[in-house]
């Protein structure tokens, strides 16, 4: 045992990094799977349907069934594809999407693991936000190359559309956060969050109020960057079959799918961090009772799940759902019983709640908005979004100049 602990002490940094990466990968992939379930459920209810409800109670096991289907399906490679690029494209898309999430910090406090402190988040870069943009900038290759390598006309059109769209909206995306960077005076994501801290007024310190123009530009451009509705022209079903991934099946298709949902999570996290105070609570620091909010949400929700489970039609649901509810409510009770734990989860709780809201908005938009026409998309990006982003930069710079002492 002592040899093991000595090995740990010597290589703690590496070991912790590997464990954190594995854990984050696991969490992100699980969240991805359940995001598809969430999306299908929410869109279904918006359209007065039930959504998935056959596999498991409330369709909760649907993601597992989908995963198994992706793994077991036949994986044909069409004739005439460029083999190397055809295989490279989904790998590239997935790898870049998963890398980008490593830069996101998830909480303010350090966690003490057997005598070594480690922060929540894998890397903490000085150029955090720039590194994220660099990775998203490379993300376009996954889509463009997939379209080209398939050697088929619809994927090619999808790839062309997406590369044009992503270059166009990247300008607005990058320019729209310049205001935030000017106000914070740093590229580091942690410092950007700290700069929004306001002990007296809480929510009023967030960047969303001075940077409302920047936020609108950022969110619209970010939705376009992730190729989601209403900017999903690269994969427009009614025009291009499935766009760039028409010729991809089985797990290679799943990789594009996971990449898309992962970038949705990254973008939502980035929105919360840049404009909505990240892990900061919206309440003034003096309102200490708000720290029981996680328990206040978890316990009733857990009890509701138990109640719902008891009434559920199938035997399986009657067993699983109350169990799930007990775990959720138990977490809430745990937070109340251990103040240290409760204090620690405050940051992640707020950040994750904000991320969840943005993910919901993604799904909401998919349920409501029609798709852009291609020329409208280009005109919108270049003639409206880009000028507004530039105006925002000028306004912010002027305000900072006027308010600075000399």
């Amino acid at each position, binding site marked *: 045992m002592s040899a093991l602990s000595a090995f740990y002490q010597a290589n703690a940094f590496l070991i912790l990094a590997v464990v954190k990466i594995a854990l984050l990968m696991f969490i992100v992939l699980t969240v991805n799977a359940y995001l598809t379930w969430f999306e299908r459920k929410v869109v279904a209810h918006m359209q007065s349907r039930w959504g998935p409800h056959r596999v498991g109670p409330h369709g909760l096991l649907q993601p597992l069934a989908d995963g198994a289907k992706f793994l077991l399906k036949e994986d044909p490679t069409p004739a005439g594809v460029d083999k190397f*690029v055809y295989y490279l494209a989904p790998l590239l898309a997935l790898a870049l999407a998963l890398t980008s999430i490593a830069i996101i910090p998830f909480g303010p406090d350090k966690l003490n693991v057997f005598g070594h402190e480690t922060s929540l988040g894998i890397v903490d870069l000085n*150029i955090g936000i720039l*590194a994220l943009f660099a990775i998203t*900038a490379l993300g376009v290759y996954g889509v*463009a190359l997939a379209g080209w390598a398939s050697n088929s006309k619809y994927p090619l059109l999808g790839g062309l559309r997406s*590369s044009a769209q992503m270059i166009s909206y990247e300008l607005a995306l990058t320019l729209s956060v310049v205001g935030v960077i000017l106000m914070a005076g740093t590229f580091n994501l942690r410092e950007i969050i700290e700069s929004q801290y306001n002990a007296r007024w809480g929510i009023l310190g967030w960047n969303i109020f001075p940077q409302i123009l920047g936020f609108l530009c950022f969110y619209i451009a970010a939705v376009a960057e992730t190729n989601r509705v209403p900017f999903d022209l690269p994969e427009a079903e009614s025009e291009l079959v499935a766009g760039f991934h028409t010729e991809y099946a089985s797990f290679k298709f799943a990789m594009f799918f996971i990449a898309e949902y992962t970038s949705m999570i990254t973008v939502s996290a980035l929105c919360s961090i840049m404009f909505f105070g990240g892990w900061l609570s919206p309440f003034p620091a003096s309102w200490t009772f708000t720290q029981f909010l996680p328990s206040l949400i978890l316990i009733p929700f857990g009890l509701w799940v138990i109640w719902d489970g008891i009434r559920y039609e199938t035997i399986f649901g009657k067993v699983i759902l109350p169990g799930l509810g007990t775990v959720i409510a138990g977490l809430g009770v745990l937070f109340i019983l251990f103040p240290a734990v409760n204090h620690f989860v405050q940051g992640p709780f707020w950040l994750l709640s904000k991320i969840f809201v943005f993910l919901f908005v993604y799904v909401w938009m998919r349920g409501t908005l029609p798709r852009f026409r291609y020329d409208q998309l280009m005109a919108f990006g270049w003639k409206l979004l880009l000028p507004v982003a530039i105006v925002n930069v000028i306004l912010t710079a002027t305000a900072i100049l006027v308010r600075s002492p000399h």
Partner: protein
Amino acid sequence: MSLSLILFFLLATLAVIGAVSLILQRHPIHSALSLIVVMVALAGLYLLLGAEFVAAVQIIVYGGAIMVLFVFVIMLLNAAAEERTDISKIANSGLILPLVAVLTAFLGVTIARGTEFMQAAARAPGQGLVLADTRALSHMLFTDFVYPFELTSFLILVAILGAVVLAQRENQ
């Protein structure tokens, strides 16, 4: 061998392999991919040199904009694999490879013998380990280099106009 040396050799090998592959690949898309590999490797080397901001800009602008434009044009024109025609006498004379190799070797040896400040830098270890401060970089850009900076904005304007003129179809 220190970690930075190992990283240097890894990235340098990657860059050279990318550059050689740029020459050997017949299809423009494969050449473009090789060039992207070179650029990413160079961004890694910039990080190793402490130039964080330049590394990020290298990937965002070179990797994310310029090379995407190349890939876009290759896809748009549906360029096929390169045909090796024998019209050019220089390219087929078999002389260029030795010629370029000799020139490169000459250049490399001259520089490798080192100028004064490089030897000074070698004598003062640790100097380069300081991360370049992005704030200092921007301060310099907007004070000492403000006229060149404004000139580049003019250059970009000219380039945009040029691209618009080129893209315009002549209306008969």
